[in-house]
């Protein structure tokens, strides 16, 4: 059944289109401009007229950032730090969520653990960066990836706990019980039954933790000093300088910093909102 298009509906459609159009423009232009700037040559930055369209595009800034400035090392650090953060967060997250979702525990305990994890989400990093700096100094792990891995794991644990809780709750207890009746012990049934079933969820949680750690800047800025541990965002910030006009390099670094989380979102897009809202919004 098709409704006739009255002038009023047409007007509505027009307004809707206009709204969406403006939104799309505001949404996309900044990203477009970042990419265009990242393709400019240095001499173009000093031209009096600024081209809004790509003009003599070059990948020079990318080479400059990754090779000449040696940022590939920072990229490597970022990947290492994020990878181990994911491993630690997921393992600890599973250790904490397994008992509260798969075992008969008092509701109070379950609620207590979840509440406590949620409260960590409210912890402002800037307020604890001061004591953490003192601790890192005392432990002599300043400028070492392990300091970041530890802190990132801690700050991502709330997300991981809530996401994993959601995924584990969805798997019927009976499946594991059945395995155990067949003679498997709890460890094997965890390993053989639960883990494979929860794998997609664990993977999603891992990717989300990865992207969050990838974006972290404050701790990385304060707790690193050299390419031994510096992560990519620290490098990006280093290009925002007062003494040099290097907007193209700056933009290229920005593009690279964005590219990896965006690429990962192709896999985990369904779960981002679940992660950010602690499971209230879910994909059905």
């Amino acid at each position, binding site marked *: 059944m098709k409704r006739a298009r009255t002038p009023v509906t047409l007007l509505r459609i027009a307004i809707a289109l206009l709204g969406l159009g403006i939104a799309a423009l505001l949404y996309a232009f900044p990203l477009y401009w970042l990419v265009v700037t990242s393709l400019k040559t240095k001499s173009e930055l000093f031209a009096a007229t600024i081209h809004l369209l790509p003009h003599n595009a070059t990948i020079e800034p990318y080479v400059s950032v990754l090779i000449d400035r040696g940022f590939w090392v920072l990229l490597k650090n970022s990947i290492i730090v994020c990878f181990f953060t994911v491993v630690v967060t997921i393992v600890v997250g599973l250790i904490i969520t397994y008992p509260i979702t798969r075992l008969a525990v008092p509701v109070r305990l379950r609620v207590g653990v979840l509440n406590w994890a949620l409260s960590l989400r409210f912890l402002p990093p800037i307020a604890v960066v001061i*004591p953490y700096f003192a601790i890192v100094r005392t432990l002599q792990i300043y400028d070492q990836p392990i300091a970041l891995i530890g802190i990132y794991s801690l700050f991502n644990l709330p997300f991981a706990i809530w996401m994993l809780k959601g995924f584990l709750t969805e798997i019927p207890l009976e499946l594991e019980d059945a395995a155990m009746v067949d003679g498997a012990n709890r460890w094997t049934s965890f390993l053989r039954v639960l883990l494979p079933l929860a794998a997609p969820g664990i993977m999603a949680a891992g990717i989300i933790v990865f992207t969050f750690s990838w974006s972290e800047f404050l701790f990385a800025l304060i707790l690193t000093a050299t390419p031994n541990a510096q992560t990519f965002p620290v490098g990006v910030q280093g290009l925002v300088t007062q003494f040099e006009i290097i907007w193209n390099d700056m933009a290229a670094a920005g593009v690279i910093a964005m590219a990896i989380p965006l690429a990962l979102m192709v896999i985990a897009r369904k779960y981002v909102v679940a992660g950010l809202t602690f499971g*209230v919004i879910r994909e059905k």
Partner: protein
Amino acid sequence: MSRLVAELPAPTDERPVRVGRRRRGRQERLAYLILLPALGTVFVIVTIPFIVVLIQSVTADDGSFLGLRNFTRALANPLFYEALRATGVYALIVLPSEIVLGLGFALLVHRTVRRAGLRATLYVLAVLPLVVPPVAIGVVARLIYAPGYGVLNIILERLGLIHQEIQWLSNPTLAMLSVASVDVWQWTPFVYLVLFAGLQTVPRESVEAAQVDGAGWWTQFRYIELFYLRPLFLLILFFRLADVLRVFDHVYILTGGGPGTTTQLLSLYLYRTEFKFFDTGQAAALAVVVLVSISILYSLITRVLPLERA
């Protein structure tokens, strides 16, 4: 076709694990055996900084006890109140804008976009900003607003709308708006996604019934949809408030707190006190104040939060 929905906990949503009493006892012991070491470790790691910062706030660098002197210093500093004010203004700009815009788009798409494919595309597009590093967004914002090479002025000039550069980052009001706009750009999609998901939970029958009764879109929104969205607004407020208190990266890159101290949010002020003035005592005192206020705020908000707990 999968779709995103809000899963609000029903009051009776208690998942009973039915097992015999003996087995329950055993399982409980096992649970504690697994939980305690892990939780204990995490708890210690989380708690140590609180103790350290508390000690730092009442002692001098040489370890001598100062009493509350750092606190009086921190609270007597006018910059602290400027930072509080800036944070408040920032929150008052970004939270309503994001909610209004997010709600607007959610309703718009909900009402006008029917094609599943298009909805899915919009979903992916809305997810993207959420995972972009704020540092990179700060870089984008500089390319847009900076004096001299900021593209926004260039476009406005080409369109003939302005003849003199607008001082986006120099005028205190505009600087705050510029900084806030970055936040709105990144987080409106989040609000959109949450509210859009919420709209999917509105039972079709009640909407149709209302339409039969001749309810206009406003009535429909006001009396039906809003009812289902209400808990989600709280949720959005909760997460966005937590985020506003931790905003640092893009402001640090875009204005560094300027002009003057207009955009020096609480987090930037704390950073400056500790890592530019190296006044650890005062910074620690500030951190304690912030942590205590946030704990209070947190306990107030969580009472009404629609999160599934069990």
